[in-house]
């Protein structure tokens, strides 16, 4: 009994001692996915360390956990992050109960007709990031077949695909190169095995570059690419891979997602289609701290630095300079609104590559 008393006293004291607290509630995936959740967490940690706030992650086990976890987090924290599209409904149910706590939703759109002043939602123009992946893949494929491996076909994943297909189409139209796209879904964001199997299957069907928009499943896809590449090159050293690819003009590649995943298999991850997740979560924490928090929805694209491509630290040497230059030019067109990347299935079907002439 005494111990319990002391314990609850410590808990009570520590609650009072904390000034500012940020809690991130994840979907079933949790930290360690090296993409979406880790990216959000990175931004939270960066902001929290700057302002000296306490920060914590709570992982959900199933959908029935969202509400209790968000509620518990709201009882304790000043800012609660709901990470992942699946938590949309739960976030708004809970946020309504805690008008004095700030909520930030990542990849979440307020359901129609709901708007709470204490909820700030960020979504991203994944199609912009997907566009880079598609353009580079189409430029680099030697088999004329590129693959797409998605997680669950939720809108953010699908937007990656729309952009990917559009990017490939733009390249193939501008350069008259025939490029076919294979599509598959793991129906899961957690199990790397599923990502690996599907990626292997697409390689077997003739693809040589696979874009992995599947959370932690993608890590398995990267592994698959690495296995195939190493078997082909006979070495896993970056220099050997670059030499081989440049000399023989072929290889097996993966394209990473959400954050810069190039480092996960240098030379094998061709590039990563990045979302500005960590930037969004960083500003989410900062705005709550300095009192500039405003509820609503923010959509971040190339123009807002909310979508882009990784710096391609390891692979830049394999990708022709011309492709890089073209991408620079196309980026400008997107920013100026002269090139619109489709963000729905219908827009993708109707998408026609505009007449683009490079000034070089």
């Amino acid at each position: 009994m005494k111990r319990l008393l002391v314990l609850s006293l410590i808990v009570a004291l520590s609650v009072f001692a904390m000034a500012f607290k940020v809690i991130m509630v994840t979907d079933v995936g949790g930290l360690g996915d090296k993409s979406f959740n880790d990216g959000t967490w990175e931004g939270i940690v960066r902001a929290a360390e700057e302002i000296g706030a306490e920060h914590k992650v709570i992982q959900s086990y199933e959908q029935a956990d969202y509400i209790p976890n968000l509620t518990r987090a709201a009882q304790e924290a000043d800012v609660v992050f709901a990470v992942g599209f699946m938590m949309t409904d739960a976030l708004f149910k809970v946020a309504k109960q805690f008008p004095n706590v700030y909520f930030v939703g990542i990849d979440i759109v307020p359901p129609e007709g709901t708007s709470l002043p204490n909820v700030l939602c960020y979504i991203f123009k994944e199609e912009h990031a997907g566009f880079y992946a598609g353009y580079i893949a189409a430029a680099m494929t030697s088999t004329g077949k590129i693959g797409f491996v998605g997680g669950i076909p939720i809108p953010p994943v699908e937007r990656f695909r729309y952009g990917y297909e559009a990017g490939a189409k733009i390249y193939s139209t501008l350069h008259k190169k025939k490029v076919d796209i294979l599509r598959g879904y793991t129906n899961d964001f957690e199990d790397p095995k599923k990502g690996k199997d599907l990626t292997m299957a697409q390689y077997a069907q003739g693809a040589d570059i696979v874009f992995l928009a599947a959370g932690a499943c993608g890590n398995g896809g990267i592994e698959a690419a690495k296995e195939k590449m190493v078997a082909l090159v006979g070495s896993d050293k970056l220099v050997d891979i670059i030499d081989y690819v440049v000399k023989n003009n072929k290889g097996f590649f993966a394209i990473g997602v959400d954050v810069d995943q190039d480092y996960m298999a240098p030379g094998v991850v061709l590039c990563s289609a990045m979302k500005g997740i960590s930037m969004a979560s960083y500003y989410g924490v900062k705005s709550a701290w300095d009192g500039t928090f405003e509820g609503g929805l923010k959509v971040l694209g190339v123009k807002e630095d909310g979508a882009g491509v990784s710096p391609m630290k390891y692979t830049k040497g394999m990708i022709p300079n011309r492709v890089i230059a073209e991408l620079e030019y196309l980026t400008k067109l997107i920013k100026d609104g002269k090139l619109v990347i489709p963000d729905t299935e219908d827009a993708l079907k109707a998408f026609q590559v505009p007449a683009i002439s490079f000034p070089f």
Partner: protein
Amino acid sequence: MNQRVWSFLVPLLSVIVALIIASFVILMIGKNPITAYAALVRGALGSKMAIASTIVKTTPLILTGLAVGFGFRAGLFNIGAEGQMIMGAMAATAFAINVGWMPAVLAIPLTMLVGMLAGAGYASIAGFLKAKTGAHEVVTTIMLNWIADYFSSYVVTVPMGVGFGTPKSPEIASSAKLPPLMVVQATELTSGIIVAVLAAVFIKILLDKTSKGYELKAAGFNPYAAEYGGIKLAENIVLAMAISGALAGLAGTLEVMGVHHRFLGTLSGGKGFDGISIALIGQNNPIGIIFAALLMGALRNGSNEMQFVGVPKHIIMIVQAIIIFLVAADRIVRTIFLRKKVAK
């Protein structure tokens, strides 16, 4: 020692042993097990909200536990509770979306019936295949799980999918929603728990007090003797699978009617598989299964709170695994216990 006492004592001792072993794991990751377990208890039972969440989690587990446990008693290893749960929930949702014009007295039982029939029908496929061709139900139900999984992904994204957000169906008619027993902030404690407990009692009576239950048990206990004694095996296999599937279907249906109010792509979330361990811990006894499910629900729910003191919730999976191991190998527990007794 009395068999009845044993079947109660083994799971109980297993839980204690499992918690002790897991406390070493907690120590190993540099946390205090006492703080962790205090949080576990607080998270599971410490507040109104905690209790409500625990019961919400327990409800489907009772039913999937019953589904698997009932199958075991009839000599069938139904691994397909997951798929049957999905099919039940999906059918119930499709029905419940369209019953806005019906009064709740009618809509609620009918929706449950539809969900149970869908689960029963889906499980009967495996039952039928076993009865007719001898195809083992473990294999067929696992395959049927995948079909249900992918089929439901399709259904919630294409024909039944709505809106922006989680892949989900439209909300069911309010007349088909189960009335909540208690509402704490955004957490609702549904009356589904009553249905689940009644189902357990019903299964208990069916197994112990009816001649059909006797037939099913006999067929499970020794199919050859049962057949020799004039029990129709094929018929009993299909019936047992159907009842098992109906229970799993009801689990999914109650999740739709009481918790989510719509069908979601990942609604089942492995609860069908949890049914296997719950049946094991509950020693296939319907009443035991209620307690096993409650234990599992409490551990799961409490583990959320454990994260707030910095202990990963995966510890609970370790606890769960040890419990299952010990219950499955209850001879080990028995030996340890008897040795102690002798030493005294």
